[in-house]
């Protein structure tokens, strides 16, 4: 080999050395310098986790009757078993499940590298569809019937507003998120969570803790191997203060009465009502009804329609609906006048039927002259003129002060379901705020004294008011959840009554008010006719509140029984139900009758038609 050739071979050898150095250097960079990065990428390639959904806690009534549970629902899913998706199978599923083939295919495409997850096509399928799939199983490739917990509201539309429903919708308010976080639940967008009622307020306890399964996947995202598993922790079960039987009865009573009222054609607007039955010595709610209701099991299908209805049945009227409360306010007026020393219980006042007070001409119902009255007889017959005078004597400031003492104008403190509203107490300040500084006139004090003017309260506040009177001035926090029990049966929480505050009202005044309320159900009282046949003495107050438009007045009742040793408070509001006697009073009477006797003989509707003297009511 000559010299030139040798040199040229040497140069080639030098190039070869260069090439090997280049490759080694690059390898050193990838395998040493960037090792951590690529190791991470490699682990990320092959591991992923599947969420294991925790069973949601169940909800029971006070006697352990089941209200909400989970039932197995069949979900049809399609899985890539390693050789892609089968066209015949897709065609079959498309037909059986009534989903366009296109839709299935685009869902498959959308799955990309998540093929380890079964592709859920339809949940909660009917038994017919299950049968068709099962029959054809032999020729279907990669089709699963997975069992999934589906929320099962055993009681359908009963207590729907209290129990609430779930969806994947967004959580509007920051408050809820913060409260959930405080209770140890971190909301992730897209999660299925309670939207209303107990499902929402108790979400952190009900939801449990989801588990995780770490899996190894291949390049197509197909499952290769199982690794560590963290089992899900089931949610806590809740035992409510609610009495399912009573709740059902109250709902039935309301429905029956409202249908009858509408059937008579006089009150076409009597479409909504609310009732609260509560223990005055604890605040425990035994029944809380917002009528009309809706079926929780059909909420996803019906939701759009329910929202569009006017009025929509979705809000919980018992704590979100506010109404002027008419004559049921008169205990506030009396309390104000008595506490301020402007009135003695036996002071006689004369009712002429029509009178001009504070430059305003006012009348009693049907301009009937009640004649000489003291406080007891005035409350029993619900004489307006008596309470106009009492209101004027006490003054608006005292009226609004004692209204607040009775818990009006701010939420009663029920937190087991969301959304309680404050209502409005008529006051100088409120008028100034909403009218841009207009002053208060004495004539308005007279309206306020009989529960009109700006006064607007929730049925729950109405019940709480009667409870404060009945128990001697204690404002207990109303509550619905009595006991929280974990999935192993340990009691996590057992609620004791929570006295929020004591109303600053003298015991003497309260006992006068109680006696006045008792007289309402005694001979001559506005409630006598309906309550006379009960085995217990009822203390209460009827009311009809003007709506401010041309509709029939709202019909109201609030009271408690037995008078001597109060067990329950009952408050009823029927929107545009007419006079108290026409709707709220018979409803409340039947509730009490059921509670104390276990049956409802009631006063037959035909008798009710005959009714008490029409001019006695207000």
């Amino acid at each position, binding site marked *: 080999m000559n010299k030139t050739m040798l040199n040229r071979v040497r140069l080639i050898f030098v190039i070869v050395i260069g090439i090997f150095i280049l490759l080694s250097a690059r*390898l050193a960079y990838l395998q040493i310098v960037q090792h951590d990065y690529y190791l991470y990428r490699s682990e990320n*390639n092959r591991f992923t986790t599947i969420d294991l959904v925790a069973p949601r806690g169940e909800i029971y009534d006070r006697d352990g009757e089941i209200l909400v549970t989970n039932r197995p629902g069949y979900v049809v899913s399609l899985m890539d078993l390693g050789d892609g998706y089968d066209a015949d199978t897709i065609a079959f599923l498309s037909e059986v499940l009534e989903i366009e083939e296109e839709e299935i295919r685009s869902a498959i495409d959308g799955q990309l590298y998540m093929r380890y997850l079964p592709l859920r096509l339809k949940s909660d399928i009917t038994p017919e569809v299950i049968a068709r799939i099962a029959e054809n199983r032999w020729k279907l490739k990669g089709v699963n019937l997975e069992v999934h917990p589906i929320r099962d509201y055993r009681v359908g539309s009963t207590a729907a507003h209290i129990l609430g429903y779930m969806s994947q919708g967004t959580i509007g308010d920051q408050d809820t998120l913060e409260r959930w976080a405080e209770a140890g639940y971190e909301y992730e967008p897209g999660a299925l969570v309670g939207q209303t009622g107990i499902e929402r307020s108790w979400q952190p306890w009900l939801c449990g803790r989801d588990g995780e399964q770490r899996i190894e996947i291949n390049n197509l995202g197909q499952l290769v191997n199982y690794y560590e598993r963290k089992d899900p922790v089931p949610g806590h079960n809740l035992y409510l203060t609610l009495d399912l039987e009573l709740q059902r009865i109250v709902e039935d009573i309301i429905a029956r009465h409202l249908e009858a009222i509408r059937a008579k054609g006089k009150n076409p607007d009597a479409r909504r009502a609310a009732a609260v039955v509560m223990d005055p010595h604890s605040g425990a709610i035994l029944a809380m009804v917002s009528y009309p209701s809706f079926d929780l099991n059909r909420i996803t299908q019906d939701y759009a329609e329910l929202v569009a209805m006017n009025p929509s049945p979705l809000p919980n009227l018992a704590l979100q609906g506010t109404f002027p409360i008419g004559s049921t306010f008169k205990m506030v007026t009396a309390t104000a006048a008595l506490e301020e020393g402007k009135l003695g219980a036996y002071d006689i006042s004369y009712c002429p039927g029509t009178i001009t007070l504070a430059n305003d001409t006012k009348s009693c119902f049907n301009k009937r002259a009640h004649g000489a009255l003291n406080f007891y007889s005035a409350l029993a017959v619900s004489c307006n003129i008596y309470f106009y005078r009492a209101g004027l004597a006490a003054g608006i400031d005292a009226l609004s002060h004692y209204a607040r003492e009775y818990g009006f104008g701010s939420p009663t403190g029920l937190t087991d379901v969301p959304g309680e509203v404050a209502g409005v107490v008529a006051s100088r300040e409120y008028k100034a705020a909403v009218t841009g500084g207009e002053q208060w006139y004495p004539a308005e004090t007279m309206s306020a004294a009989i529960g009109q003017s700006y006064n607007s309260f929730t049925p729950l506040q109405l019940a709480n008011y009667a409870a404060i009177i009945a128990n001697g001035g204690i404002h207990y926090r109303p509550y619905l959840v009595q006991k929280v029990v974990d999935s192993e049966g340990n009691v996590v929480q057992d609620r004791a009554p929570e006295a929020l505050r004591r109303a600053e009202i003298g015991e003497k005044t309260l006992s006068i008010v109680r006696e006045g309320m008792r007289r309402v159900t005694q001979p001559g009282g506005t409630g006598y006719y309906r309550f006379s046949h009960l085995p217990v003495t009822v203390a209460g107050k009827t009311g009809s509140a003007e709506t401010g438009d041309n509709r029939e007045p709202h019909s109201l009742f609030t009271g408690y029984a037995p008078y001597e040793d109060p067990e329950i408070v009952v408050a009823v509001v029927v929107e545009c139900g007419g006079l108290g006697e026409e709707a709220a009073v018979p409803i409340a009477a039947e509730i009490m009758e059921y509670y104390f006797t276990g049956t409802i003989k009631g006063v037959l509707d035909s008798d009710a038609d005959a009714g008490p003297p029409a001019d006695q009511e207000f």
Partner: protein
Amino acid sequence: MPMLDRRLIKNFDFYLLLLVLTLCVVGTVTLYSATHIMEELADPLYYVRRQLLVTCCGLVAMLIVCFIDYINFQNWSRYLYLGSIALLALVLVMGSVRKGSMRVIPIGFFDLQPSEIAKFVLIVMLAKLLADREGHFHSLQDLVPSLLATALPMGLILLQPDLGTALVFLAILAGMFYVAGVKKREMLILAATVLVAAPLAWFFVLHDYQKMRLMVFLNPGMDPTGTGLQLLQSMIGIGSGGLFGKGLFESTQARLRFLPEHHTDFIFSVFGEEMGFIGAVALLLLFFLLIYRILWIATHAKDQFGALICVGVAVMFTFQILVNIGMTISVMPVTGIPLPFISYGNNAMIVNLLSIGLVLNVGMRRHKIQF
């Protein structure tokens, strides 16, 4: 049949043989690692069995080639050449498609891949054509026969299309021209011609998938699901191997099929992932010693023909190692060039072993026989 001279035995390069055998063993083990977990295989040893069989045949053929004085190839070269051209033409007519291009002629259980054979034949052919000139290259005209001899098989291979293998031809041609004594001026003119031809090739010769691969090489972020993904997964495999590797048979990238072509073109990724930097550099060292040995024999060959054969073989291996390993670590664009002795490929294995046989042959007869 000439007597096997003792001197021939004495000059037999056992060192080179040992290197080749070592590479074959490394290749077989790596191939086993890359393929035994392939679920689609009824027989997990399918690839390993075939490759072992072919390797044994190749080793026997290599030894047989050693007995035939390579001088004879000078006379046989034109027939070998015509035969390889015929096969390349045949593959275009009746070849069967593998991964989008026509590269093989199926013969029973064996797929004949004429382009691999053509590489070996071209080396012999060029060695004869260039040696005949005994270093006299006065003008471009003197290069025309060699250029034509290279252009014909290259053109046929580009028609398949198989750009990678065609580029191997170009590398072989350049290396052999240079060592044969082609003057720098001519070398530069030819290099300039290639550079001018490259843009034309972009528009008229290259297929879309080839352009794509080149563009992805220049910009690895694009096409993250196709070629870009291959590249990325290959680098993840090698990079995650680290200094010591994940251990033999522990490649998750191959087992979970993140890495495509993990038993053929991308087998080095599996090796790099399992054996780490130390293993990869050791393999590079084996290759380096192989090339060194071949070039050493080239410089000691008794004639130009022998020396040029060795240079051709050395350039062929070097180029394939550079392009194949370079591709897996993203210093070269993705092309379908296998890694000698390691990638699964029956034709390549036989041809590589035959090439080594020829080099051994040149080494055995490195001194003129003294009378």
